[in-house]
């Protein structure tokens, strides 16, 4: 059975302020979804809530992974079930080397000890693939990394952990053109029948390398429009205004009724 993540009518709040108002999404293995939308509409919150960030409280709806609700699972349990979130702002942890951390994470996800030689070999391959500085795995986790290095490091973790649902929160910010190409290629290769990707972005540049299968527009904590690649060209030309106008109209008609 291929992987499936279903988000039903998701509502969430932070400090008594509701941010998500009933978002729906269905992602299956092999698909690449993109969520776009203006700033501050709840895209990152949506990603964090799926991951299980305790800052946010779910007040309605459900998140179902392969037929099983994960709403009651903690962050680490969700990660072990195969959900991965590449963060918009990865944390810095000094004193913990990158390779040590990734090894601990791989062991946690696989639920067994990993042989050091095999791990180092895999890590080496992944580092080469991402054209990263060879010393990067031995430096402290994100400590003194440039913005681009941090984002690449998130992708390195993704390659090593082999998750089922990959959520990339603005992975393209801070990456230069060449890095974008490398990262895009790595993401594309990661997708298979068991792996699905959800990309949250403002820029269409990365989508030149990772062709999405589904495009969604999020406005005011809700996914208001679903479509294919053609939606991207329209956003490129007209911005998000056409959707906002459309929404206002529908609100207006509702009120008249």
């Amino acid at each position: 059975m291929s992987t499936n993540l279903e988000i039903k009518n998701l509502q969430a709040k932070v400090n008594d302020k509701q941010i998500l108002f009933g978002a729906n999404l269905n992602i299956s293995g092999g698909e690449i979804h993109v969520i776009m939308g203006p700033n501050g509409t709840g895209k990152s919150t949506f990603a964090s809530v799926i991951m299980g960030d305790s800052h946010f409280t779910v007040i309605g709806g459900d998140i179902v992974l392969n037929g099983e609700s994960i709403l009651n699972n903690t962050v680490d349990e969700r990660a072990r079930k195969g959900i991965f979130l590449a963060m918009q702002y990865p944390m810095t942890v000094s004193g913990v080397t990158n390779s040590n951390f990734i090894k601990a994470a791989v062991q946690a996800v696989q639920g067994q000890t990993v042989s050091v030689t095999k791990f180092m070999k895999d890590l080496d391959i992944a580092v080469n693939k991402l054209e990263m500085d060879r010393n990067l795995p031995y430096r402290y986790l994100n400590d003194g990394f440039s913005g681009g290095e941090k984002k690449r490091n998130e992708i390195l973790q993704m390659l090593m952990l082999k998750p089922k649902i990959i959520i990339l929160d603005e992975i393209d910010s801070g990456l230069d053109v060449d890095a974008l190409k490398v990262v895009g290629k790595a993401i594309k290769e990661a997708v298979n029948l068991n792996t699905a990707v959800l990309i949250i972005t403002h820029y269409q540049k990365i989508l030149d390398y990772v062709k999405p299968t589904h495009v969604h527009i999020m406005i005011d904590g809700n996914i208001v429009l679903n479509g294919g690649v053609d939606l991207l060209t329209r956003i490129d030309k007209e911005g998000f205004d056409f959707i906002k106008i459309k929404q206002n109209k529908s609100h207006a008609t509702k009120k008249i009724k």
Partner: protein
Amino acid sequence: MINYKNSTDFLNLKKCSADTILDLPYVNFENSLKKVDFINKYSKKASKNISNYKKRLLIKYKKYTNIIVLLEGEILLNNLDKTLVDCEVNTLQDNNPDTNLIELLKSKSENKMQAHLKANLNSVLLLKFKKSAIIDTPLLIVVATINDLSHYMQIVLEQNSCVKIIEKLENAGTSFINANTNINLDENSNLEYVRIEKSNKNSFIYSSISGNVNANASLKYSYADLNDSNVCCNTNINLMGELAYADINCVILSALKEQHMHLMQIEHFAKCTIGAINNHAVANDQSEIYIEGVGKINKGMAGSDSNQQTKVISLRDTATVTAKPFLFIDEFDVKAGHGVAVGQLDQQEIYYLMSRGLTKEDAQKLIIQGFLKPIADNIFIKEVGKEFKRLVEKKLNY
């Protein structure tokens, strides 16, 4: 065999010190502490059989080379490398004691603990490294006890010598340990000294480390307080010659209801001297940590640099942490700085690590290991480094 320990001269000197204990004050930062009469409260004086412990120590340490194991003042293992021909080792078992030791016994005591040490002195280790001795292989010294211990250790480095020493202080059962270490670095010498203390529950340990660093000499001192008992530690380094350098790195871990009190002081007595203090502490349960850091630059000591950083993680709301950084500067042309940070583990960091599949406990463990890494990296004997990690994990109840 006649040894100094049994000589009437030694016994008389001890008696003189014992007479002065009552009139003397406690250590110099006593005002900040809860008034506890360490000596009467913890001193046991009962003697227990050491034969089983002896066997355990022999098994544990026989695989090491370049090691001295001292059990209640007697050398149990002395496995010195050939390179250590440049090192003179002296204990109370020797017939002719070192002149420094007699001087110490005759000198006037500054405080109660010093007088108590002299009055009950039962363990002595004097190490003297000869001029230009360069010793690559680190030396491991284990000081062990079951009963009450009054231990005096002296490390003397003559000119141009370069040495690495790790000292481990450990005990079995409950003991009252009063340990005094005196370091003297001559011109141009270089000492890397690691001290790891691990005493049992219900023991008490008072350590006093004093050092004189002369011109162009450098002291890199790393200290790990992994004691399961109450601790009072007094570190006092004097920079005596131009361009003298001292760096203190300290780890303090406390758990349960322990009290750990530390004074770290570096005093500048010469121009262009550099002193740095770095403290890392983790307080758990209902324990209490008190750290006082003092950087003192005396008048006329221009071009000196005094710096101190204290970072403390408090794992529970019930733990008490007091950190006081002091700078006493009596000269204009100097650099000085201090900083203290006390806080809980960063929840965002924990969330980040957990989002990769680590449990909360594993995430905390990794962050604390990272926090203590700068000190763990200073431990230059691999096996001891591993043991340090193991002890840290055990202490913090992972």
